[in-house]
Structures are given as C-alpha cells and as structure tokens.
C-alpha cells in the first residue's frame, strides 16, 4: 500500500511537472488564431495556384490536341495555303415581275504564299447557283494572279485580276456595303465586276498616296444590236478573250486621313471592239472615274462619278459615244449591329443621243450584322426616267 502511495505520488508529480512544461510551451489563443489565419491564407493561395495550374494544364492539353489536329488537316499541313470566301442569297420582289430567290454569288478564295515576296491569289465564283448549258448561272474565274513584292512599298502582279476602278469593283464582299444588289452605276457604267488579264504595278508613294498601273486585255463590245457599244456587254472575262487591242488603266488614290478615301482612275482602250466589227466600226475609248468615301464615327458617305467617251462614227450613231453615271450614298451606323442608308443613282448608257434615256434610282434600306462577317439586308428601290423597276430586295451575305 505504501509502495502504491509512493507510485501514485510519483505519477502525480510527473503529470504535474509535465503539465507545467506543456503549459509553458503552448501558444496563446491569439497566436493560435494568427497561425490559423496564416494557414488559411496559404491554403487559399495554394488553392488558387492549383486552379491556375489545372487551367494551364487544360490549355496545354488543348494546344496538344490542336497540334495533333493540325497535323491531320490537309489544308493546315500546307500552312502557306489559305482559303476564304463569301456568298449572298437574294430575294427580289419587283412590280409586274415574278418574285425571285437567287443564290446570286458563291465565291471561294484560294491563295498560296510561295515565299514572303511571292504569292498566288485566286477567286472562283459560281453565279446564280447552277451553271451549265442552258442554265442561268456561270462559273467565273475572277482572279488568278501571281504577285511579287519589289520591296515593302511596291509590287507587281501578272494574271487575271480586278481592275483598279470604282468603289466596289475590288472590294465587294456583301458585309462591306449597303444594299442587297450592287449599285447600278458601277454595274452598268464601269462595268463592275470587271476583271482582265495582264500585268499591273501598285505601290505607295508616301503622304497617303498610292498608285496602280495596269496593262491588260480590253473590252470587246458588240457593234450591232441593242447592246452595241454597251460597255457591260463587252466584258470578255478572259475566256479566250480577243486581245488584238489592249487597255491601260491608271489610278491614284489618297487615304491620307482616317476615314477618307479619294481616288481617280483613267482607262484607255485603243479599240473597244477589238476589230471584230465591219470596217469603220472601230472605236477608241476612255473611261474616267472618280470617287470619295468618307466615314466619321457613325456617319458614312460614298459618292462616285464615271464617264466613258468613245470615238468613231458607229458608236456615235447609236448614242453610245458617251456613257455616264453618278451616285451618292449617305449612311448611318446606329450601332455595331444596325445601319441605315439611302442612295440616289443616275446613269445613262445612251448619253450621246438626245432621247430621254437617263435612268434614275433611289434606294433606302437597312443592314443588320448579327456577326461582323454576316449581314442581313433589306432595301426598297424606286426607279424613274427610262427605268421603272420598283420593288424591294432582301439579302443574306457572309464572308470568311
């Protein structure tokens, strides 16, 4: 019993001493709280870091997947070849005419960069959805040229290309302009879309000036019939084109301040008929075109004037020795998605005669861009003078 008491006393003293030691080493509650807070902070930081690393790992996995897909893609494996395109579906409803639904243009661009200074550019177009004998549409090669840079300001190209004239001849993707159909002045007077085969030089002259000079095949207008000397009927589209007489085109453009473009083009053909008519029907011809494009904030303005002058008695006899037109188009961008416009056009392919052959057209409409490269359009057109096709147009356009 004595022994038990001694052992108990000894054990108690040991516990007491131990407790006294623990009590001495234990942090205060405040210290423990501080430590806890620090640990919590570390946990949060580690958690954030963990989240960041997990996300980066996901990105890495995606990049690896993309790289793998790139290797499998025929196009992407040719990294210097790129494709693009645009298209437009139109619904036309005109007075006293059948309503029409037309996939007006389906276009594919293919380009290839041989080197940094040498590239190939092409544009292949299917018009009116179906082509072939007896069909309404056509397949057209509008561009196919090789371009070479002399330096970082001057280039040359050879092949089939769009002539440097007008506003929409070179830039006509549907989301870049107002109105479902392209304006009638550039269509019938310039005549857009106009492409020829040949060579061209272009470059920058400084102070916002740039130049284009082209030596190409020319038009071959009929010399008889209702379309005699009508420029639009002379487009040969570089399909076995008669190239007895070439054409030279020069343009000077100034884009020296934001939002403003001023340009003038002169084009000369030594014989618009390519010598295809009977003797005495030859006609040398000159086109002069000038335009201004201005955009300031939401306000936009386009204005263009174009005029053909043709020599020769035969062209004069049918009143086609002068063909002229102009238009003005104010617009307002309500928001990035919505824009409205109005356009007034006057043009006359028989301006050389005294008959009242001048055509007038007013368009008013709206564009809606659900995406920057996709557009829905609606416009109303009213014609007067020698034309009387009134109605409305609906359109869907895209580019990529």
């Amino acid at each position, binding site marked *: 019993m004595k022994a038990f008491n001694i052992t108990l006393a000894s054990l108690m003293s040991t516990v007491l001493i131990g407790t006294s030691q623990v009590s001495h080493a234990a942090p205060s509650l405040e210290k423990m709280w501080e430590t806890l807070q620090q640990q919590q902070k570390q946990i949060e930081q580690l958690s954030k870091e963990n989240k960041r690393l997990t996300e980066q790992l996901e990105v890495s996995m995606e*990049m690896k997947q993309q790289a793998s897909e790139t290797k499998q893609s025929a196009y992407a494996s040719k990294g210097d070849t*790129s494709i693009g395109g645009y298209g437009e579906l139109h619904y036309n409803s005109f007075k006293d005419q059948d309503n029409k639904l037309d996939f007006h243009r389906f276009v594919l661009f293919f380009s290839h960069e041989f080197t940094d*200074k*040498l590239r190939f550019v092409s544009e292949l177009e299917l018009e009116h959805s179906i082509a072939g004998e007896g069909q309404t549409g056509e397949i057209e090669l509008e561009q196919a040229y090789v371009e*070479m*840079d002399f330096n970082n300001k001057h280039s*040359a190209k050879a092949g089939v290309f769009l002539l440097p004239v007008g506003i929409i001849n070179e830039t006509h993707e549907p989301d870049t302009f107002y109105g479902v159909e392209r304006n009638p002045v550039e269509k019938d007077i310039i005549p857009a879309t106009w492409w020829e085969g040949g060579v061209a030089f272009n470059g920058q002259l400084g102070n916002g000036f740039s130049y284009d000079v082209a030596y190409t095949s020319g038009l071959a207008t009929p010399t008889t019939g209702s379309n005699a000397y009508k420029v639009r009927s002379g487009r040969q589209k570089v399909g076995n084109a008669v190239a007895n007489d*070439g054409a030279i085109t020069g343009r000077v453009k100034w884009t020296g301040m934001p939002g403003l473009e001023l340009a003038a083009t002169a084009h000369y053909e030594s014989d618009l008929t390519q010598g295809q008519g009977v003797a005495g029907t030859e006609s040398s011809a000159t086109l002069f075109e000038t335009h201004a494009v201005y955009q300031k904030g939401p306000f936009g303005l386009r204005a263009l004037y174009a005029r053909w002058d043709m020599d020769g008695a035969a062209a004069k006899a049918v009143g086609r020795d002068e063909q002229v037109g102009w238009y003005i188009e104010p617009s307002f961008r309500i928001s990035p998605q919505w824009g409205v416009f109005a356009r007034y056009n006057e043009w006359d392919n028989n301006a050389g005669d005294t008959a009242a052959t001048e055509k007038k057209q007013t368009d008013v409409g709206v564009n809606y861009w659900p995406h920057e490269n996709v557009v829905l359009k609606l416009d109303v057109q009213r014609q007067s003078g020698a034309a009387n096709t009134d109605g409305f147009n609906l359109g869907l356009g895209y580019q990529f």
Partner: protein
Amino acid sequence: MMQSLNRLGFIGIALVLLIAGTHAHARGIYQEPEAFLQDTFAEGVPEPEMIWVTKSIRPMVEKILGHKPNALRIRYWRKASRSAWILEEIGKEKPITTGVVVNNGQIERVKVLVFRESRGWEVRHDFFTNQFKGATIQPDHQLNKSIDGISGATLSVRALRKQAQLALYFDQTLKSP
C-alpha cells in the same frame, strides 16, 4: 501596228517583272518586334512574362476576337505601369503583327510591325494608329472612342481594333485580384 505595240507592251512589262523579280525584297516588315520593345522600354527590356488564355478569361477573349483565339499563351513585357503586347490577328487571310503599349489602362501606342495582307496596308500609317492613343476599355469591352475606318481596308481595321481591345483586356486582367 496597234497589235505589234500590244505584243511589245506585254513582252516589255514581262521583262521588267522578270528583272525586278531578281531584286525583290519581302514586304510588310515595318519594325522588328525586338526593335519595338527596345523603343518601348528604352531603359532596358524586361524579361517576358506569359499570360494563359484559361477558361476564366477565354469567353471574353473570344467575344473580343469574334472567334476562337489562335494562341492560348501570350507573351508580354511589363515594367511599372506599362505593359507591351505583340499580338497577331488575321485581317482577311494573313496575320497582322501589331505591337500595343498600355500604360495605366490606356493605350499609349499602336504600331503595325508586320503586314502580310494584299489589301488594307493603310492601317500601318501613323494617322490611323494614332487614333488609338488614350483609348481605354469599357465594361462591355468595347473601346471608349470610335476609330474611323479606311475604305477598302475594313478587315485590317477590324483586326487592329481587336488587338487594341485585347491588349487592354489582358492588361486589365493582370491587375485583377
């Protein structure tokens, strides 16, 4: 006579092209990225850092670009309140390389470094890029000022506007907690 002149004209121009071609130089490099960085950080270019287009910022990046991002890791350079970004965005077909400097959340400078597109080269001019100076990004991630476009260069203008927005957005995310 005219036909002979025509032939001579074509042959002459073809010869010019051929001769000129032997002396051709690549176009479109207006400033090397290294030179742009040295211009920006005259006192010494800082070490590059990397921003990852993780899922937390990716939706906004896609909204600004209007498509999936081409790069998921973007290098940038930062010193004090300034950050410099070298970004690539396709206009029509080819990437445009642009340097953007952001200072205190505002655009200090936009410089087209490499332009590879066949149209729209006007965007490289100072009169165009100077419009971005002082621009900030709004809560809807649009720029706070309108940028006047260039006729015929719509896609290049659009690409530069996106690059400016993106640099401002990235800069903003660096300062977010």
